[in-house]
């Protein structure tokens, strides 16, 4: 019975992980496909040709770098603001911090399309032309709650006497923060940045309402989808995958040494 149970658990886990990783495997695999025609959807044969010139498709590459820059900027902005909010909520005794926390979590339950139309309303209302600025503001906005909540959770496990100890040993408050608090929060900061990065990188709905003339990768792909699916898409996706996996591996050892 027990062996049967653990077998079932094993199969179940394998299935779950299989489903989780199947799209990833397919993406990597199809970056090596040599498709006939314009749609890279059926396996035809192995080639390295796609990897020889990963940036061959000029329009795709431009959209890719637009999204990359946007995601980095939005993630950094959201983590900076979210981090300050988390510090304020976790440390200082802010009046009504309970309600502020609730207000922070609420946008997570809000359908994205509602946010998108509201933002468009707002930008039109204050006569702010849609473009890089509105795109960046919108993206950091929907990332903000995630960043703040992740960092607040990380701060909750942080022993505040550590910062006092640093000050007691002669470090002024800012130095104590830089030398003790920041390194200990680093895994949380990295996790929040990665999450915000991917949230922004694959956002379609908010972008389509606030981008103006700017074409992000999801916007480009949604349009290009009608005409072609080039293997360069899988190549670029695989590259992104590698970068985030590398960042995650970098973050892991410091997480283990925490306890």
């Amino acid at each position, binding site marked *: 019975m027990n062996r049967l149970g653990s077998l079932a658990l094993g199969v179940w886990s394998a299935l779950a992980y299989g489903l989780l990783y199947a799209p990833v495997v397919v993406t990597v695999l199809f970056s090596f496909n040599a498709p006939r025609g314009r749609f890279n959807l059926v396996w035809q044969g192995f080639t390295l040709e796609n990897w020889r010139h990963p940036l061959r498709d000029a329009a795709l590459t431009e959209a890719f770098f637009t999204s990359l820059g946007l995601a980095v900027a939005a993630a950094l902005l959201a983590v900076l603001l979210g981090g300050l909010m988390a510090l304020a909520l976790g440390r200082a005794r802010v009046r009504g911090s309970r309600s502020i926390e609730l207000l922070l979590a609420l946008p997570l339950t809000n359908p994205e399309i509602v946010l998108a139309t509201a933002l468009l309303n707002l930008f039109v209302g204050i006569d702010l032309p849609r473009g890089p600025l509105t795109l960046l503001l919108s993206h950091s906005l929907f990332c903000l709650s995630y960043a703040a909540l992740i960092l607040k959770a990380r701060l909750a496990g942080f*022993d505040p006497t550590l910062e006092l100890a640093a*000050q007691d040993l002669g470090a002024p408050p800012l130095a104590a923060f830089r030398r003790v608090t920041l390194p200990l929060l680093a895994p949380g900061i990295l996790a929040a940045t990665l999450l915000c990065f991917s949230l922004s990188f694959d956002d379609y709905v908010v972008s389509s309402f606030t981008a103006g003339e700017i074409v992000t990768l999801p916007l480009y792909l949604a349009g290009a989808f009608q005409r072609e699916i080039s293997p360069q898409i899988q190549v670029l996706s695989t590259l992104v995958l590698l970068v985030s996996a590398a960042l995650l591996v970098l973050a892991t050892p410091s997480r283990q040494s925490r306890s």
Partner: protein
Amino acid sequence: MLTEPARENGSIEALPSDVIALRNVSRRYGDAAAIEDLSLSIAAGEFFSLLGPSGCGKTTTLRLIAGFDRPQAGRILLQGRDLTEAPPHRRPVNLVFQNYALFPHLSVWDNVAFGPRSQRLTEPEIRRRVGEVLEVVRLPELARRRPHQLSGGQQQRVALARALVNAPAALLLDEPLAALDPDLRRTMRSELKRIQREVGITFLLVTHDREEALSLSDRLAVLHGGRLEQVGTPRQLYDHPRSAVVATFLGAANLLPEGAAGGLRLLRPERLRLSASPPTEGERGLRARVRELAFQGATVEVRLCCADDLPLIAIDTSAALPENLRIGTELWCRWDPADSHLLEASLP
């Protein structure tokens, strides 16, 4: 009765040589006073303890001296300078935290080097100091370890080294042994004493453990309800407490009513002798019945009850107790009046 010089009697007059001096310090949280009009002077090289039950204000006092909190009234002088408003990093004292507060992301070496680096000492000087202080706490071979790889006792030593490395005017210790198991606590207790002798720095220990305070301190202060009850040497406070609070806090105590004004006479349980024979000339005695016998290894604790329901405790070695002692036995409790002590202040 008290023959020590005036200073030893718990005088609160500050002297220029005092490392720590509190003058009429008060700290309230909301309506509740954590400490009230507290004055205290601690001399250079002293091992001083603040003793009291939890909530008596001893940790608040320590936080005020370390600079983590500010008093609403009174002044705090460190090495003769008024540092009441100075931030923690500008004070010549270092604190050993109750939970040690070691930096988990730094090795033992880097934890200890944190202070010297904050002072921007040269790298060779930092190496010399850290190496030296790790020798003092006997941990040089663990310098590369991370805090979570150390036992509780080792973490305690690192915390001590980290606080001592800046050569502070005084070391503040907040219940440093509370987290250790009893055997280790005994070892670390004598280690604390050895380290204090070796470095010659003033130690201010906060504890609720009377054995700890009695065995370590040159002088100690008993705090109760945010007020200073009494200051003196361990022996003064144990043998000649001013109040019932101090008497009972420092050890088991028999308090005999004396006179009509509610006076109390202290009789320590180890000063009582139990015997079948009545008190001799010059002795005092009470007839009592044994209610409880508790064997404690080296000694036996005997709980008795006198005629007017007055409870008594006697502690003695098994050999010194009358034979065939059992519950219900009636006998004499005898003592030398010189071993008893009349309290100044009666029970509240």
